[in-house]
């Protein structure tokens, strides 16, 4: 891994407009409190003294990228975290600064990630007014006991009020739900699913809980204070979610995501279809093609030899990031990028094409996965597509790891 050079060094004269990244991610590394299952980088000190330098740092970064003329015309933008809404009015300012700095398409999707405890109707209205089109709300569960166990700072009522505020502001609402929570039952899960359908959310994400090493929840389970989620039950809950949401008109379009057609997250689709995206903020990730990465100063031309794709991240230590230190850069060869494309596209219900598979030299792997009933093919000849099956969704790691490994 090499250190990145922060943007500002290169030039993009040779980059055509069509090749410019159209997706932007801005990371806000603050949370009002740490959830019991979370091992991601975030800071719970939300005092002005702590937030202000980060805010200024983000402003500077935005300005630097803008000088480079990157990204191009923005199609999607996502402010994630952490919990961006803990910034309150500063968040609205941040949006305005980004919009001033970058061009965005008339139909751009602008999502703000939010938690119910810090999402007031006033803030929702200000965000909508500033140009946000979509709120992704981290509800996780509509069961009070489960929320407490997850260490969430909000109540069921907070969640319902938050959803209502988003709807009133005329924004698209996405709700995150989690299954496999210790103590969760089919009944409490059905309750959460029924509740989410009353909120008017046109997009729902369903994630199985992962016990991450070093989190309070993981130690509680390993020490026997809590019973670890049973994988079979979690599988059943995922199946139930599929049936419930699909029958309510939310179509599964990705392994963990359901949407009323036309309300899919275009930003997430950009990730799964290997579009370039720029990440700004501590621990933010980005993906660029080689010319863009060189132009952006993320990649030294001499290192570019066999690379075909560049993934980079910014420093995930706040002090380092403030001091201007770079994060990590990962170079993928053409073969690796091709396998990654197939891996990511298999997360989508529409699957991947035979052309992609052949380009990635993955035909034997696909045949194996097919014989295991994890993927299926549809169409004939050049129109052939490979799609993940219901069984494949539940055993996603098997599918993705075989595809990535290429064997």
């Amino acid at each position, binding site marked *: 891994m090499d250190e990145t050079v922060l943007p500002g060094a290169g030039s993009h004269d040779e980059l055509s407009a069509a090749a410019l990244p159209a997706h932007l*991610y801005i990371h806000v590394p603050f949370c009002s409190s740490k959830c019991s299952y979370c091992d991601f980088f975030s800071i719970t000190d939300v005092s002005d003294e702590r937030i202000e330098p980060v805010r200024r740092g983000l402003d500077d970064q935005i300005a630097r990228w803008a000088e480079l003329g990157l990204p191009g015309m923005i199609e999607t933008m996502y402010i994630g975290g952490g919990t961006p809404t803990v910034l309150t009015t500063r968040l609205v300012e941040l949006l305005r600064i980004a919009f001033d700095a970058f061009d965005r398409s008339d139909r751009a999707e602008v999502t703000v990630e939010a938690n119910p405890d810090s999402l007031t109707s006033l803030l929702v209205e200000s965000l909508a007014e500033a140009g946000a089109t979509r709120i992704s709300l981290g509800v996780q569960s509509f069961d009070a006991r489960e929320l407490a166990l997850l260490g969430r700072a909000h109540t069921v009522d907070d969640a319902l009020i938050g959803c209502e505020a988003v709807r009133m502001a005329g924004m698209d609402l996405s709700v995150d739900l989690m299954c496999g929570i210790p103590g969760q039952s089919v009944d409490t899960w059905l309750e959460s699913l029924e509740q989410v359908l009353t909120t008017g959310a046109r997009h729902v994400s369903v994630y199985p809980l992962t016990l991450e090493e070093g989190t309070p929840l993981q130690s509680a389970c390993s020490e026997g204070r809590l019973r670890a989620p049973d994988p079979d039950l979690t599988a059943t809950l995922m199946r139930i979610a599929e049936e419930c949401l699909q029958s309510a008109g939310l179509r599964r379009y990705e392994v963990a995501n359901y949407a009323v057609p036309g309300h899919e997250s275009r930003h997430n689709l950009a990730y799964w279809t290997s579009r370039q995206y720029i990440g700004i903020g501590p621990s933010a990730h980005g993906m660029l093609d080689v010319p863009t990465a060189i132009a952006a100063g993320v990649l030294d031309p001499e290192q570019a030899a066999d690379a075909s794709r560049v993934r980079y991240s910014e420093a995930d230590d706040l002090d380092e990031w403030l001091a201007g230190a770079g994060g990590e850069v990962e170079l993928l060869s053409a073969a690796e990028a091709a396998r990654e494309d197939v891996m990511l596209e298999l997360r989508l219900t529409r699957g991947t094409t035979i052309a992609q598979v052949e380009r990635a030299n993955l035909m034997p792997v696909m045949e194996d996965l097919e014989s295991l009933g994890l993927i299926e093919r549809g169409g004939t000849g050049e129109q052939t597509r490979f799609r993940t099956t219901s069984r494949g969704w*539940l055993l996603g790691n098997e599918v993705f790891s075989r595809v990535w490994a290429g064997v």
Partner: protein
Amino acid sequence: MSDPSHIRNFSIIAHIDHGKSTLADRILELTHTVADRDMKEQVLDSMDIERERGITIKAQAVRVMYEADDGQTYQLNLIDTPGHVDFTYEVSRSLQACEGVLLVVDAAQGVEAQTVANAMMATNADLEIIPVINKIDLPAADPERVRHEIEEGLTIPADDAVLASGKTGEGVCEALEAVVKRVPPPVGDPDAPLSALIFDSYFDTYRGVVALIRIVDGEVRKNMKIRLMATGVVTDVEEVGVRRPANMPVDALTVGEVGYLVTGLKDPALVKVGDTVTPAKHGATEPLPGYRDVKPMVYTGLFPIDGDQYPDLRDALDKLKLNDPALIFEPENSHALGFGFRVGFLGLLHMEVVKERLEREFDLDLLATAPSVAYRVTRTDGEVLEIHSPQDMPDPGHIDHVEEPYLTAQVIVPPDYVGAVMELAEGRRATFKNMQYLSKTTVDMHYEIPLSELIMDFFDQLKSRTKGYASLDYEFLGYRRGDLVKLDILLAGKPVDALSFIVHKDKAYARGKVLTEKLREIIPRQMFEVPIQAAIGGRILARETVRAKRKDVLAKCYGGDITRKRKLLEKQKKGKKRMKSVGNVEVPQEAFMAILKVDD
């Protein structure tokens, strides 16, 4: 020439952990043989594994000069013997090189199985036995009880037993005084042709095989032409010397002395422990008594986890064999595990030590299959085969009968645990022979038991059922007929050669049932349901099922961090690599040793 009247050759014998090596260290310190700054804990245990485990694997010999109370200086040759039952033959040869022993007994533990076995060996070799009650600094020390155990149980007078502590150094001088006063000086004929006993050897990369010897008659000098009587090899002596403990060349080794001899030979197999060194011409007519060929009794398959390491494993085994001629191996090919070696060992500890050295010193990742013993199979056509691996067992239709090695086992235990030992022995096809009270607190029990039962976790079971009090010693008894069958384990309907084992017919059902249950716990859920079956021939005795896994999917992808996602997948994949793919079933390594953990 050293005057034999001022030479004493002695050994320290003890049950494991009774403080033999620490006492040896104190002797080296007291006699200024090793400078304080060079003093490592347990100097004579030179291998890392020996020092870590507190056991001696190879015999060592060191010469110390001791100024006794009578004002005269004596040459004391201390021969440190291996402390484990696997190496009984080496111990017996080391004792042949001595006239006396310090019998070290832990002041708290008292007499244990190897105390008895070692004391018997010393008595049979007609050696002067000086009891040393060690670790008297321990709070639980009870020297009077131990003295009683030595006298009653071992019928060795212990009135003048030395009370010592290897830790504090107390009593070490008294022990050396006792050696000088009580151990007889060596007797031999300086004018007779050279006759010297090889009691150990090691391989030096630059000089070849170096033998540790005790001169019985005559003398040996540099450049002499010698013959090793058992192997018939003739060679020139490149150097003779003594170990203090570093090698120090001398002009000659004479009657009664102990030292080393650089043979100039490159093949360790030619220099055998117990062999006699004599001049090539006009040598001794009779070899020294007691030589025998050591035969491995326990066999296991060793396979590199990474098949590419097979040549490295072969090289490593070749290198280890240089210092461990008892190690034997031949290539073995398993359908399940690929290419590896069938390796023969003197016993279980020997096996563990070798495996550990291969992994540690040669950086190999190894998978060991459950150990097996050497069976003798007589075919219906009269041919007799020695089988080292269940895979080589002929078809039942071609077997007339099978014999298996038996041991006499001795268990020493407090009376409260006699029942527990009997129960364990009962379950292991052991035949009770007799028992006697060594003292009010120790019972000496004797059994005849198949070696195959003993290598199945017997020692751990014995320890746990007696709360650690029991001690065990055993000796090869002979081959006996048994109603033995090969039990196959099938995964997903296919027999897995590396999991099959040979078992007594009466126990086949129980073992098969427990093992399939154990395997169900060990084998992780896979993409398919995996049936586990135990079978003799085509007959299924037991069946368990590992259910297919339903869910294996990672959580949310935060902010487009695809790299993290991929890394998690790679990590998961790496975990799988530690497993062996058998057909399409991923089997963790511990499955191949599961049979050892089958608790009766």
